[in-house]
């Protein structure tokens, strides 16, 4: 008996999108096989926790295999001991690789060369991609934040309304078709949210409660308790407006438990949603994977790396080849082909286009599967993030509670969208951990007499305010005992951070290709990435975010500590500084040149997008390949634009919708 007699559907990837499709199909009696390249979901998370606790750099990927740091002895060229991806069977890009982006033995991604003659403001400058993902059972939801915001109808009509980017196929109708699946996604994930707060936001964007955001629209659990910092913003903003929009704080709907739910515990405020929730109070895809297996119709094969898609003469998919391994750095111990009636790629927005492009042996499809019109791998996007940080006037006790409990959702749409990217603003509860690598940085400053936090030297912010914490103390003070306790306490308990999720436009030249030079341990090519911030439209929003940060901190009576980076370096010269990874410059309308650093939001989007015709997209609006009728793709790679909300709820809703389409097509 061949696999095709056994399986109706083969899914590549055991993250949230693959798990949801598998669960829905399994419930409907379809026989499903999931191929997952990474290791299986561990029986409990203590091993991942142990790795996390010991990690020096507590990056999003730090708990998960393969090891992200201290994997090899540190050298001057590799101070963090990053492993060589060439020796790993399922390497992935990590944020520690961002600054090592041009080092081929440290960065999983290969990058196209920088062109000559660039200056700091050049729109053609290439950068490191700043976000990462996981290749393990459960996928990247292991370290998602948990934010469960919907996109708005306006997000689906960027071209029609503002002459930017593209519409989603069908425009606003796409949103309305998605509404029931958004409702269902809320239940699958188990979202805690406060309905009245969200209604205010939806009404601002002309989404009426009557059916348009769903007749049964409500959350599975009450909203998560806001942090003291959230309260401070709520109390301080008053009737503030910005670029014609009101500015107010909205408690974030979150995929974490405000009460015990789905046999998982209530959030205990570990302040560690990223990299890992120690108690699984935050939903992750392992929940749905387990549900899928419970249907009795879903089988998962771990450490099975999909390596090629086979096409039949009629251009339908007729099999997926895979390689198997025992040890993460060992040789392939087997290989095979699985067959089914339909195939779903759910390997996220880097590995999915990589697999399509690797599948280049089929007659007539020498440029890869689903790639007749050279659309695969293009339009790579992320929310490009601006961070602003400061010290509150009085203690508001960060480093407590979930990493973020509120945001500003009222700036996600407006006429300004003709001129610059929209954004949402995330209020961070983790002090300066992300912004300045605290608590270590501030501690070292006051113990050893340094000033990397700007609190203990002669630093001045852009408003001309001196930043030394104790203006009566000398610069570079070295403290101990009671004075150290008092100083650290006063500083840490006031630390605040804002993050702006700026909408990056789809750019066909921002893309994933195959490296001709670099391979992984299984001999599969590694991604070759080209990534620019190629428009004034996006860069203008960094100026907007910077100005808003200053305004908000003024309202709060806070002191701003946001530190602009040094000038970008695009070329390595003999004896000169290393090239920079994510720094750029922008000259605003007043002629002022700003230095910016962008951060990744972990939102990898767009590389196999849906569209209205094969010439502009990889998939139709049913998430089905234009070129191969029994091939579907799910995940954020299908998004035509990255829009203004964190993607996971939309990924889940689209996966539920795709599952319906597949069920229909299998009949």
């Amino acid at each position: 008996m061949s696999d095709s007699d056994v399986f109706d559907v083969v899914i590549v990837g055991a993250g949230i999108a693959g798990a949801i499709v598998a669960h829905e199909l399994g419930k409907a009696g379809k026989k499903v096989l999931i191929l997952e390249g990474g290791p299986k979901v561990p029986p409990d998370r203590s091993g991942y926790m142990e790795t996390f606790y010991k990690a020096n750099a507590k990056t999003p990927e730090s708990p998960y295999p393969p090891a992200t740091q201290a994997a090899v002895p540190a050298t001057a060229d590799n101070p963090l001991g990053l492993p060589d991806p060439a020796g790993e069977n399922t390497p992935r890009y990590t944020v520690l690789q961002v600054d090592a982006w041009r080092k081929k033995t440290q960065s999983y991604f290969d990058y196209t060369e920088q062109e000559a003659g660039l200056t700091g403001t050049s729109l053609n400058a290439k950068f490191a991609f700043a976000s990462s993902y996981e290749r393990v059972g459960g996928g990247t939801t292991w370290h998602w934040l948990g934010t469960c915001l919907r996109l708005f109808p306006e997000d689906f009509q960027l071209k029609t309304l503002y002459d930017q980017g593209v519409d989603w196929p069908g425009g606003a109708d796409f949103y309305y078709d998605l509404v029931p699946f958004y409702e269902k996604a809320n239940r699958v994930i188990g979202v805690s949210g406060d309905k009245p707060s969200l209604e205010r936001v939806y009404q601002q964007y002309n989404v009426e409660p009557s059916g348009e955001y769903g007749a049964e629209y409500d959350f599975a659990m009450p909203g998560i308790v806001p942090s003291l910092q959230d309260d401070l913003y709520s109390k301080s903003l008053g009737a503030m407006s910005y670029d014609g929009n009101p500015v107010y704080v909205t408690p974030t709907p979150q995929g974490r438990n405000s009460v015990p739910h789905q046999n998982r515990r209530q959030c205990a405020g570990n302040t560690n949603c990223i990299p890992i929730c120690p108690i699984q109070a935050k939903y992750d895809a392992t929940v749905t994977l387990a549900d899928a297996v419970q249907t009795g119709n879903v089988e998962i094969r771990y450490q099975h790396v999909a390596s090629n898609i086979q096409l039949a003469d009629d251009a339908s998919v007729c099999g997926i080849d895979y390689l198997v391994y025992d040890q993460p750095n060992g040789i392939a111990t087997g290989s095979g082909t699985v067959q089914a009636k339909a195939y779903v790629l759910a390997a996220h927005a880097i590995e999915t286009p990589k697999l399509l492009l690797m599948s280049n042996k089929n007659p007539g499809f020498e440029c890869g599967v689903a790639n007749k019109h050279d659309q695969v791998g293009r339009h790579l996007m992320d929310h490009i993030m601006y961070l602003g940080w400061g010290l509150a006037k009085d203690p508001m006790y960060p480093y407590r509670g979930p990493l973020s409990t509120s945001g500003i959702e009222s700036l996600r749409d407006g006429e300004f969208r003709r001129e610059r990217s929209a954004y949402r603003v995330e209020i961070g509860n983790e002090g300066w951990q992300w912004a300045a690598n605290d608590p270590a940085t501030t501690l070292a400053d006051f113990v050893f007499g340094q000033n990397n936090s700007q609190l203990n030297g002669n630093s001045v912010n852009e408003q001309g305010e001196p930043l030394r914490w104790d203006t009566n103390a000398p610069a570079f003070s070295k403290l101990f005992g009671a004075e150290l306790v008092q100083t650290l306490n006063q500083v840490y308990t006031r630390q605040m951070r804002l993050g702006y999720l700026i909408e990056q436009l789809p750019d066909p030249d921002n893309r994933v290709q195959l490296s001709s030079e670099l391979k992984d341990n299984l001999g599969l090519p590694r991604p070759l990435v080209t990534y620019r911030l190629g428009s004034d439209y996006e860069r203008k929003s960094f100026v907007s975010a910077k100005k808003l940060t200053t305004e908000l901190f003024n309202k709060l009576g806070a002191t701003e500590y946001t530190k602009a980076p040094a000038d970008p370096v695009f070329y390595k010269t003999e004896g000169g500084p290393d090239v920079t990874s994510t720094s750029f410059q922008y000259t605003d309308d007043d002629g002022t040149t700003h230095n910016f650093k962008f951060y990744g939001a972990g939102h990898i989007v767009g590389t196999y997008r849906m569209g209205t015709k094969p010439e502009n997209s990889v998939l139709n609006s049913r998430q089905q390949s234009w070129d191969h009728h029994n091939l579907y793709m799910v995940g954020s790679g299908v998004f035509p634009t990255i829009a203004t909300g964190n993607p996971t709820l939309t990924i889940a809703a689209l996966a539920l919708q795709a599952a319906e389409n597949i069920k229909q097509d299998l009949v």
Partner: protein
Amino acid sequence: MSSMDNFVGLSVVLTGFAKSVINPTLDEVNIKAEYLPVWTERVASESGDNQLPEKILSNYQALSEQEPALTDQQIGEQMLSDSQSAAFVLACRQLIFLWYMGAWPTVQEAPGTSTGGRTDFCTLSSKSYTSGLVWRVMQAHPMGDSNYSYGYWGEPPVALDKYTGQQ
């Protein structure tokens, strides 16, 4: 006085935390037993002076036994004063960082720059990470190791002295 007694006493003086935190009566974690040998070994190897750790501890003991008794502040000032060698003072400051972060610091000085240099560090163990005093001084919990209950973050924490033991 044993080396451990002096190590605990010196740690109390330098960190600003009470003995009840540094050396609690019922000490299930017993992180000091991990710190003393690491501190002794690293200080000796980094300074090239095998006697330095013991010199520091006996110097502390002498100050702690002085009559009339010195305050913790006075003992700390003497331990960290310019009259001590640079290696002696650095070893004392590394001890502070170790207790706060559960990690061993490597200090790269750059006098005259805007930052004054930088500090890299290496976490000793999962136990040392969760034992870091830095989480107490911010009236919080180690990130990823909360013993609090749902919603605590909506209320201010208990007073700082409950965390430092200095009540």
